[in-house]
């Protein structure tokens, strides 16, 4: 069985994706494996940073959710040290009507609205609750240190 038409079509549509600050390109020769870039949303501590992720569409996608992980170090209560993401639509709340694009936009939205009450990284969540400003400052610091800069990304293009 060749690659499902849906994956081909999604890939095609992602190629034309513009102005949303998300980018997904096929990694090597595995048509189910994507290199992803997400721009930190404006007004968040991640603004100005470009975060690298990897995404894989398992065999039974879209009946099962894509697997996604941050490769860029990020300070966020719902993302752990290995870049794993706690987001309902990637788990129990997945629906086959969602797509790669919607998943990436949801992750971007998660950056703009952290949820320390449902943490994956406990230490970060703790900090977020105790002293949100300090936590955000750390997040900004990490963004500066580890994420690519939006300006660099534009130069590349």
């Amino acid at each position, binding site marked *: 069985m060749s690659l499902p038409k849906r994956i081909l079509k999604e890939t095609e549509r992602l190629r034309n994706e513009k102005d949303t600050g998300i980018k997904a390109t096929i990694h090597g020769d595995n048509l189910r494996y994507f290199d992803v870039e997400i721009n930190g949303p404006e007004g968040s501590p991640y603004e100005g940073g470009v975060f690298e992720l990897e995404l894989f569409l398992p065999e039974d996608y879209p009946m099962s959710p894509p697997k996604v992980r941050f490769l860029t170090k990020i300070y966020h209560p719902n993302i752990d040290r290995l870049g794993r993401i706690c*987001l309902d639509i990637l788990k129990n709340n997945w629906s086959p009507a969602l797509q790669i694009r919607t998943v990436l936009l949801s992750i971007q939205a998660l950056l703009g609205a952290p949820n320390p009450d449902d943490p994956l990284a406990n230490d970060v969540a703790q900090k977020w609750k105790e002293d949100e400003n300090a936590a955000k400052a750390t997040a900004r610091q990490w963004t500066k240190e580890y994420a690519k800069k939006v300006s660099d990304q534009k130069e590349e293009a």
Partner: protein
Amino acid sequence: MGNSVGRERSYSNPGNGVGGSGGSAGAGRPFVVPASGSSRHRHHHGIVIGDGERPSGNAFTRHEQRYRDREAREAAKAEKERLAAIEREKERERSMREENVDGGFLVTQGVYTGAEDFKHKIVRQLMIERRLAPFFKGLSDHEDDWTDEELIAAVKAELGENDPEENEKKGKGKESTATSPSSSTPNIDHLTVPIASRSRSHSYTSDTSSTSANSHRASSNNPAARLRSKTLSNSPKVSSIAIPTQQLAPGEAVIPGRQVDGRHVWAVLYKDALECPICFLYYPPYLNKTRCCDQEICSECFVQIKRADPHLPDHHQEPSTSSNPASAPAAQSTTGTTGNAELLTSEPASCPFCKETDFGVTYTPPPFRLGLVLQSQQNSPPATTSSSPASPSTPNVRRHHHLPHNAPQVVTTDQIRPDWSQKLAHARAQAARRAAAATALHTAAFLMNSTASSSSNPLTGLTSSSRRMLRRVDPATGASSPSAPNSGSGTPQNGGRSSPNPRPGQSQELLSTAGLQLLGINQPRSSSAGSGSNQAQQVVRARMEDLEEMMIMEAIRLSLAEEEERKKREAKEQQKKDGSGSSGDGAGGEGSAANATSSGETVGSSG
């Protein structure tokens, strides 16, 4: 786990936004992927004990036996699955050749590659009754301005060698009968096909709905059935006389031909094709509609959506232990082991578009009828001469209210998997059995514990954690078991790397702590074994050994018990099948057969 941040903003596709939050979506759970690998490569260290060093007792042999048993089971399972897959493929080919409903098919078209666990017989029946859209062939591309010829060519291209028309021509060519092979001539002989298809669908159901020993029966049955169906379709002249007395069709008949109002049915069907929002393929505009939000969904996608596997309720997960590691084992102990079995649950699938629970669809068929019909419907005007609606309802009228899931015209995902409740009951029973075994083990461990002179930390630690350990092995909790306290890593806490040259005595400490960890126990850091007396450590060591032995024995006992039970069920099943072979509804029987299979699988994976 839920983090519903930014939902409204993100869901802009396809068509309807996916607003609001719902229960956990059944569709979101990963489906079972056939076990791979391990069975393929079977090397054993034989238990050839020729050196006279036969181990005292049979413990060593038992240990080895465990691997062997598991591998043997996996190999047997893989073989059964392979045979079942071959049968399924044959049946698919036959059905593609011989059966259609309004230009669609009665078998899936390969959009999804995983194992099919819906009841084929039920789905087939629903499609013949026009309550569920047939499996139309999906087109990768479609343009509104395509001509009839282009549309037909597109469908043919997608079908490839499965094109029934081509196969018909080929088949006819080989035959020496004088029948004209024109596809446009209504083939009256096909009127007798339902008999064959009925006999086929019987064996089909029995082998595809379960991979248990039924497949053996089915595969030995099938050649005969296939022969019969071949004879039937290839030598039509005889068939119409010879066969009908053999089996009475359950009210099925065939409206022959491929023409609607002088146009090819595919041209008519695909003219205004729609894209299914889930598989992105183009289908005739006669698709199922969700009962809740009136969204299109093709049957290929619909049959994939199902309940979540039995699991513990979401809020019932173990608390994150990292904040207070010491209290965690105690908390778990009080949760009790038997209670969890009853808590196992499985919610109905929810709508992929609007998240409404009890997902169901309705279907409005095209205004013409072709292929298999129920005899009661046969009196409606033949499609080849008229396109007047055979169905009272008019297609493409948008509903403005949503239908309840128990409305008669709604087909739910539970309807095509009627065994879900049995599966749940089975999972509960199994969890309860395992919990009981765990309790027994725990009691044994506790008794040994009380014989020890010391009551130092490691001992109590072991007792309370042993229960936790056993709970972890439990498939019910295992499924939803959260990660270990140090959730970021699986690094052994006391993995023996702390010091390259352990002090004398440290290895003992290492043993007890690392041993606990090996057994899946996250021993609280505070209860280091260091303070225990040497004697106590000896006891720990002895007990760990005993515990492991007991676990192995218990695992074997459980697997034997379940195997026994599986056999009993199979025997019962066999009896039932033999006794009432032609009863109309085989769903109940199939369900328990499937159960038997799943019990075998569970043993295989976690035993």
